[in-house]
Structures are given as C-alpha cells and as structure tokens.
C-alpha cells in the first residue's frame, strides 16, 4: 500500500467541497413557481423539516411531484404554496382524507394531474434515465387517460398494441430525507429499511437540483464501510442538511415510527382553514427552527416513537 504524503503534492491544503448547508440556506434554492419532487410515501420519510421551512420562507406557485403523498403535500397546500400536484395519492393514511388537499381541489385552487402509482414512478424513472417521455399501458381505459391532459397515445411500433405516453418528471428541485450522508454529499440508507421508499432515488436522480436532509452527517470512512448502502453518490446531490428527526411526524424506517398522536392533532387543526392557520402559527411560524419545533412536541413524546436502531 502506498504511503500517504500530502506534502508531495505541494497542495496539502486542497479541500473537498463541503455540501452541508443550513436548513434555511438549502431551502432558498427552491424558487417560487418551480416544480418540486418530494420523497417519501404515505406517512413515511417525507422531508418534513424541509417542508416546514418552505412554508416559513413563503414559497409560492409550486407544482409538487410525488407518487404517494400525505401530510407533506397537505401542509404545503394548506399554507397556500401550491398551484398543482402530480401524484397518485394525497391522503392521511388511516386518518382519512387530507382536508387541505380536499378543499383546495374542490375550490379549484389546486390542479391535480392524476397518476397511478406506476405512472408517477415510471415518470420519475424516465427522468432519472434522462429520457423525456415514457410509454405505459396503465392508464388505458381509465379516467387518467381522459383527464390528465399530459397523457398522449401511441401504438407499439412492433406489436401495434395501444400505449399511453407520459412526459418524464424532471423537477427543478427534489427534496428527500435519508439516514446518513457525508459532508461531500454521498447519501446512505440503513440496510434494514422499508422498501416502498426506494423510489426516492429515482425522484432525486430525475431532478435538476437535489436537497437531502439526513438524520446524521457521518465521516467519509463511515460511507466506505458499506458502499452498497449509498443510494446517491455525491454528484447527484447539491446540499446536505443534518436534521435529526427531520421526517417527523412521518416515520423513518427502523429509526422512528410515525407520530400518530401528532398527526391526529394535525387532522383536527386541518378541519377548517381558520384552525389550520393556528396550526401553522404554532408549529411553523412561531418556531425559529427545527429544534424549537421538536421542543414543542416534547422529548418524552419523541422518545415514545423511537424504534430500536439498526444502522447498516
């Protein structure tokens, strides 16, 4: 093995690019009017701290892309940040409808581009592969084909079979939450994890800019230990924000569970636009940062959703 002798280079002070950023700085990358791909599924591993900060920064006219969304999109919609969504689901899992989503769609404030899980995922997949469109049979005969104006039709050049086509999802920014990353932006997930969220990788790769919040920033050596756990090499990542419990109130695989108590409270607040304003004031605008938000939830309660960790 070669000896390491930095002085030989005459450039021992060459430093690697540090992609860590504060939550506020990271979120400033998201411009009004942009399209944002959101990681996570159902009430699992959505980048919630990033979403709260987007509301704090008063983002406007966003188009949100996802495949299975919940409190993440409902919050942004309730805060008035959103003009359109493209996803297969916005709901609150066992807690029923997303009230803000429902109101905004019924009033026409938010436009929905209907997707099934596979069409949304395949649109991200196409984006992650650099193609501008993707064929799919899923919408044939369904209301998606009638009502999602982006869906077009073609026949297979070989079999003559009817297909739909979709434009690739290629969001301006993707926001995802992961377990660890090094300061250079190599992002990892624990080996034991819920595999619904493997779609996060496609979402990130399809985007022009990528913001990743992580439970913990780790050393480059820690990344070296298990290179097969890296879901995004650094060249896909623009900034890394360390935010412990950054997915709260959604779950984070085997690290912590979703916070059903908090989500139930959320549903109460969301019943009317007026009470939802109180939620926003209390949990978003009146807290300075993520730690103040966690303080509001309370340490004892946060411990109750902890799961036995299994890291890599």
């Amino acid at each position, binding site marked *: 093995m070669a000896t390491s002798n930095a002085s030989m280079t005459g450039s021992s002070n060459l430093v690697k690019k540090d992609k860590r950023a504060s939550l506020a700085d990271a979120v400033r990358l998201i411009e009004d009017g942009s399209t944002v791909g959101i990681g996570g599924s159902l009430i699992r591993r959505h980048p919630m701290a990033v979403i709260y900060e987007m509301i704090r920064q008063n983002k406007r006219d966003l188009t949100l892309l996802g495949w299975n969304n919940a409190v993440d999109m409902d919050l942004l919609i309730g805060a008035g940040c959103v003009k359109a969504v493209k996803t297969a689901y916005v*709901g609150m899992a066992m807690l029923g409808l997303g009230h803000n989503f429902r109101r905004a769609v019924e009033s026409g404030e938010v436009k929905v581009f209907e997707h099934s899980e*596979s069409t949304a995922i395949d649109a991200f997949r196409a984006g992650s592969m650099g193609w501008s469109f993707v064929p799919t049979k*899923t919408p*044939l005969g369904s209301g998606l084909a009638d009502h999602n104006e982006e869906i077009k039709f073609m026949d297979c050049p070989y079999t003559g079979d009817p297909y739909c086509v979709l434009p690739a999802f290629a969001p301006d920014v993707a926001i995802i939450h992961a377990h660890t990353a090094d300061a250079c932006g190599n992002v990892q997930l624990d080996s034991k994890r819920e*595999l619904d969220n493997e*779609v996060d990788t496609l979402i990130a790769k399809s985007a022009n800019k990528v913001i990743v919040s992580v439970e913990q920033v780790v050393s480059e050596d820690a990344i070296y230990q298990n290179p097969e756990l890296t879901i995004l090499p650094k060249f896909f990542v623009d900034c890394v924000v360390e935010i412990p419990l950054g997915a709260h109130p959604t779950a984070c695989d*085997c690290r912590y569970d979703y916070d059903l108590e908090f989500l139930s409270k959320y549903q109460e607040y969301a019943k009317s636009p007026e009470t939802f304003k109180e939620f926003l004031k209390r949990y978003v605008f009146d807290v300075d940062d993520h730690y103040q938000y966690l303080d509001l939830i309370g340490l004892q309660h946060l411990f109750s959703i902890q799961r036995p960790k299994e890291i890599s």
Partner: protein
Amino acid sequence: MSTDYRIQELLAVEVSRHLIDEEVVFIGIGTGGPAFIRAVGIPLTACRLAQLSHAPNLVPMLGPLIDPDLDTLPSSLRDDYELVHWHSKAQIPEQEALDVFKRGKMGVGFVSGAQIDPYGNLNIVAIGDYDKPKVRLVGPLAQTDHCAFAKRTFITMEHTKRQFVEKVDFISGAGYLGGPGERDRVGLRQGGPGLVFTDYCVLDFDEKTARMKIKSLHPGVALETVVENTGFELIISDDIEVTPEPTSTQIELIRQRIDPEGLLLEARVQ
C-alpha cells in the same frame, strides 16, 4: 356443523375458496378501522386459510413485502420496524413490486372504492363533476395498476346505494368499462373484475353483458336487501346460491391459529 361466526369470518372463508394455488395475491396496507379489516384483515386471513387448505404455494404480497410467514404475524401491521423484520421471502423495491403487475404476474389484486358501477369500474378519485368535485378523494394509489393488470380483481365494498351507482364519476380502476370486449379494445389484454364481496352477498359478472350479477347471498340475507342497497339493476339469475357458512374447523383455525389476537379481523392494535 355451523357455529357462531362473524361476518368478517364468513367473508375470509368465502374469499379463501376463490384463491388459486401458486397465484400471487396483492394486498395493500395503510388504512385503519373497518377499511383495514376489509382491505387487509380479510384478504390476509383468506390467504392463510387457502395456504392451509388447497393452496400451499399461494404468495401474498404486501407492497414490497413478499410471501411473509403468516403463522408469525408482527405485533403491528402498521409499524415499519415490525414490517421490515417480519419473516418474509423477499423484500423488493416498490417500483419492482409494481412491475410485477405490469409484467402480468399478478394473480389477484384486492381493491375497493367509493363508487362501483355495474361493469365493476371503480372510483376513489372524486365524487361529482371531476372539474368541480363535490368531494375530492385521495387519488388512485395503485388501483389503476391492479385493475389494468391483475388476472382478476377481488373487490371488497360497503354495500350501499351511495357506493353501488349506475355510473362512477371517475374511473380510477377499469372494470369492464362500457361492456363486453371493451377492455381489449382499449388495449387491456387481460384481467378485469372477478368477484365483489360485501356484507350481504358475493357478486360476479355476467359473461355476455359484463354486468354485475348476484352469485350468492350470505345466510339470512334477503334478496330484497341487496336490491334495495344497490343503485343499479343487478342481474338476478335462477341459480343464486347461499354463501357457505364457515365450518367449525375453519372458525377454530382463524381464532386459534391465524388471528388469535384479533389483529386482522378486528383491527386490534397491540
């Protein structure tokens, strides 16, 4: 032979009879309460019953979780930690789970909806005019995939006029669309609704018209009850059966071996 049983036990046994050995059966997760019993509890119980009677090679698939050991249920079916550690034969990325549908390998998909029409078309997107909906619902999830690609869908529904409607307001899951041959005409080469399970009866679809038809009434349910609670004209043939009652052996199996804690059929949370 008969014994006391609850409606969800009757349904689990009835569903199990229609599951075929070696098929893959997709079951969603993520709902709670009565919806959980319908969408997860009954299908999973039915899968295990089938595995223990006539279908030892049946493969249940819960999202990315394939062929879990149904003799060792996790303490909660909603806790990711428990699900990830549940003994299963495979855990694959969700995108590949959906590819199983597209690839034509899915036997049965369990689906439900806020509306169903005589052709088995389903709606979980919006009630009323789509462009100005009375109620906006959650969106299609993977229902469009189930209904496009599974060899047959098993539909579990609440049986009310509000749900059994002449025409769904939005087709989020394609049934037989406008009638016979129409699936093929739009390019859906296989699949379609198989059976509909409600608290009153089991329904199937008439081959000639592709319209819904009463297959069997649950014990004690009057034909009129079904008709009154259905918002469209059902095909009523001469050979309507009575849904068989569960045997005491089956009830014992469910209560003592498959679901002793009531996780599945009572949606209990430990």
